[in-house]
């Protein structure tokens, strides 16, 4: 089975890779592009750890074929901080308000679910500037956290929304 050349638009930049056609977007992001911020949890669509945005919509990278993403914009947690290449030497990252709020509120313990939570929360705030607690709970209902009990996560999302 041969690899296929694919060009994906990831965090605002075109990235061309040679990938096996049976590899998922999660595998391509982590193994071909080195973007290990997107986590692999259950890999069966049950935990939300691998949530990324495709054209602003939260989807699970573990069940997405990169060939079918086409020229859509893929945003991973690495793309949340302000600007491509942010964080590299000489280019200080400006964290997204959600990242700041998660840090301030201690909305992570082991942190494994955090990238998925952040991406889902970003999609929510992009469409609903001041979500209610019920809307937040509904939006992140596909993201499992086994540490925090969710309260700190709700509060962090509310805090980020209040600063927007």
């Amino acid at each position, binding site marked *: *089975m041969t690899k296929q050349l694919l060009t994906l638009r990831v965090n605002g930049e075109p990235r061309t890779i040679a990938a096996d056609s*049976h590899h998922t977007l999660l595998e391509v992001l982590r193994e071909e592009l080195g973007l290990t911020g997107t986590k692999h949890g259950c890999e*069966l669509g049950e935990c939300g750890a691998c949530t990324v945005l495709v054209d602003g*919509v939260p989807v699970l990278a573990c069940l997405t074929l990169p060939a*079918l993403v086409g020229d859509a914009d893929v945003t991973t947690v690495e793309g949340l901080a302000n600007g491509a290449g942010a964080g590299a030497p000489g280019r200080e990252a400006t964290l997204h308000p959600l990242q700041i709020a998660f840090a301030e509120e201690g909305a992570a313990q082991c942190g494994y679910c955090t990238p998925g939570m952040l991406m889902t929360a970003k999609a929510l705030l992009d469409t609903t500037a001041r979500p209610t607690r019920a809307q937040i709970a509904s939006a992140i209902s*596909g993201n499992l956290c086994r540490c925090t009990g969710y309260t700190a996560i709700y509060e962090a999302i509310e805090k980020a929304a209040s600063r927007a």
Partner: protein
Amino acid sequence: MLRLPRFRLVEPRSYGEAAQLLAENGAGALDRSKGTPTLRVMLVAGGTDLFPNMKRRQFTPEVLISLARVRDASGIQRNGHLDISAGTTLSAIAHDPGIRERSTALAEAAEVVSTPQLRNMGTIGGNICLDTRCNWYDQSLFWRTAEGFCMKTNPDVVCRVATSSPRCLAVASADTVPALLVLGATVHFEDAEGGRDVALSELYREDGIRPMAMRQDEVLTDITLPEADGWRSTYLKMRDRNSFDFPVAAVAAAVRWDGTRVSEARVAITALGSRPQLVEDAARPLVGTTLDDVTIALAAEAVHKAARPLDNTSGTISQRKRAALVLTERALRSLRPA
């Protein structure tokens, strides 16, 4: 990494082309070279059901025909009736104001399928074609190999739920199907030669391995719902976690009001057997009534009798039968005039 098995991906631009590809690649043919029989060619829409199944090696097709790039595969049109393209996402259906107002059970069902991310990916066509589920089947390859597989994977093996059963007892688990049943849905299939319409109520059968009377060379393209004037409908489901899971008991109900009396009624159940089904004995007593408590109790009792769950998903048999009764009562009470 839990990787997908290798396959060749093809991306037709039309349903006709997809049907042609199915025929060319031997639709329905089984590959027996991999230990357990598997279909050689399969269709995939959102992939939210098939890809986990492929990762668990429940299916290992050589050729995968993606419907993601089919033109006009997604959309909701109203022309006296409601026409939903099979590739429409469950999120789009859940959020459509017209469906929410006039075909409420469908919006409510679409909204409780799995999680928001999976509803953004999964399609109504995929949900209608959802594979049946079973505690003995939806397990890792390691687990199933140790167990020695079951009838659904290998017809030469017994059903692990009831070893004397002549058929597979896996459970129908699609949320939208009972809703579509009470709304009187028709589905349209295309094959390489043409197309056909089938009433959804004729599509399913009590067989966990082949739960649909759909040929392997056909593609589901559209769902049509008749005008919903005067109808009120709802869908209620019990599951382990309200944010995630497949139903372990679910009821859809629809009634048509003529003044203060019910003129037509339908009740459907799922997750209580291998096929979703309309329960005529529950609907019949409702006609001509005001949905009083006594009538609702009669309908709920009929659902309790029709529900035949087995011990192959979450919950006990008696709990799921009881849930079917209670959900029916709640659903019908909610359909009384405000």
